[in-house]
């Protein structure tokens, strides 16, 4: 197609978009709502995952040793445990380090420091802090440790105390993943369907014009091109509208999510992913807009 024709059909599309004010408004609204629902679902899914990953990172199991066990023995056990494939990391916390941490926790609580002073000696036990690769592997790990050769040196493992919390988190993660995925698929499907129908109605409103255009000798491509451009405009405007709505939503949700998503809140997530979100919205908006338009227009162009 020649550039003059491209320019003309582009202007036609722009004129259509401007002069059919209400129709454009309605179409953009439907497209924007669909894209908004889809992107909120996806963003919520992603941030829920990040939140859960963060919590998961904080879970661990500590095995405490008797105060009489020498440090070399504990480090030796640590080296043995590194071979377990379920274990992601092991950290040795000596009696002194444990006391240090405990004091830090009690900074604002004078009764704790006072109690420690009264005891006079360090009452805490050295420990190995274990993180599993997957929260549902703690069970296996603790069982393996209990039956290991060094089990006699162990004072206690706090797994049983944490067990219910760990189990609950594992279940929540599974549920969020399933619900998020299902909702995502459903919303994407509904969004595509609604947009497609809205644009079909728009094309129907233009039906008589297609006939007129053919009668004055316009080729099918010439008739189609303005609607392709119109679809592109729908996509662009909708993407911008959705970006604004998402910004407002993030502002609203920011206080609730402070500190939970990668250290920031949902607003910082929005800004750090601004370009990729905008680009995907733009692409899917344009894709939906033009594809539905071209499919809808086909039935009116048969001679």
């Amino acid at each position, binding site marked *: 197609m*020649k550039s*003059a*024709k491209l320019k*003309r059909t582009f202007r036609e599309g722009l*004129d*259509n978009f401007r*002069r*059919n004010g209400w129709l454009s408004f309605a179409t953009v609204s439907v497209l924007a709502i669909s894209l908004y629902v889809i992107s909120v679902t996806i963003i919520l899914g992603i941030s829920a995952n990040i939140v859960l990953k963060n919590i998961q990172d904080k879970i661990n199991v500590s095995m405490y040793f008797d105060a009489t066990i020498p440090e070399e023995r504990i480090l030796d056990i640590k080296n043995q445990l590194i071979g377990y494939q379920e274990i992601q990391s092991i950290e040795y916390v000596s009696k002194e380090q444990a006391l240090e941490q405990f004091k830090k926790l009690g900074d604002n609580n004078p009764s704790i420091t006072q109690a420690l002073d009264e005891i006079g000696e360090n009452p805490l036990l050295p420990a190995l802090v274990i993180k599993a690769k997957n929260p549902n592997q703690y069970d296996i790990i603790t069982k393996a440790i209990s039956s290991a050769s060094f089990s006699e040196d162990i004072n206690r493992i706090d797994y049983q105390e944490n067990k219910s919390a760990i189990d609950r988190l594992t279940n929540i993660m599974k549920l969020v993943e399933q619900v998020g995925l299902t909702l995502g698929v459903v919303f994407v499907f509904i969004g595509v369907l609604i947009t497609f129908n809205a644009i079909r109605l728009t094309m129907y409103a233009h039906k*008589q*014009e297609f*006939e*007129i*255009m*053919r*009668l*004055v*000798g*316009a*080729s*099918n491509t*010439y008739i189609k091109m303005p609607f392709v451009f119109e679809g592109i405009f729908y996509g662009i405007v909708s993407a911008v509208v959705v970006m604004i709505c998402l910004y407002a939503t993030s502002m609203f949700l920011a206080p609730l999510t402070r500190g939970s998503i990668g250290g920031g809140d949902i607003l910082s997530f929005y800004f750090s992913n601004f370009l990729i979100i905008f680009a995907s919205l733009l692409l899917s908006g344009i894709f939906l807009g033009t594809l539905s338009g071209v499919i809808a227009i086909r039935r009116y162009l048969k*001679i």
Partner: protein
Amino acid sequence: MSILKFENVTKIYPGNFMALEETNIVIESGEFLSIVGHSGSGKSTLLKLIYAEEQVTAGHVYFNERPVDAIKQKHLPYYRRNIGTVFQDFKLLPQKTAFENVAYALEVSDETPEEIAELVPEILEIVGMSDKANKYPRQLSGGEQQKICLARALVRKPLVIIADEPTGNLDPVATWEIIQLLMKINSMGTTIILATHNKDIVDKLNRRVIALDKGKVIRDHQKGRYAI
């Protein structure tokens, strides 16, 4: 030389409705032909076959000695540019001004902006609509809209203008303005084919009249009057 020729043309619509049966008509270049007949007699079908909105079931329609049914689908837009069409319901694009409606017919056939800027005002002058160039169709009367349609049909200097009941929605004054414009266009050499119900028009024109009834030509008079 004949500009249009119907040779044993039969048109049957889906549902076995016979719209035209074994029709033979020869139209010479420069003629002003009126086609009369009751509703459903086949007038509109005859016209649609000319601008290839419908395809013949049997027989052939020749335009300038060339069979219309042999034109490939993708070449139809180019073929249609030889024919101007005017309808009872105007068929103007509602979102375009009078000027833009006329210009559209030129834009689709790759005319340059300079040519468009020159030709459109010229044609609007001929139909007497220069002062309404920037009005939208809804701001114009029926007669004025039909003049814009005529301008649009005329602007590409077609060989044939097909007018399907162009005065059906117009008052007597506007009707005569349109008919006089058609006569003026015809006098400049363009072939006119007019389908109408209006007895006065046909009688006053005193030109060739073809009467159709139930898909058949029942009368074809060179200086005819309205009779069915």
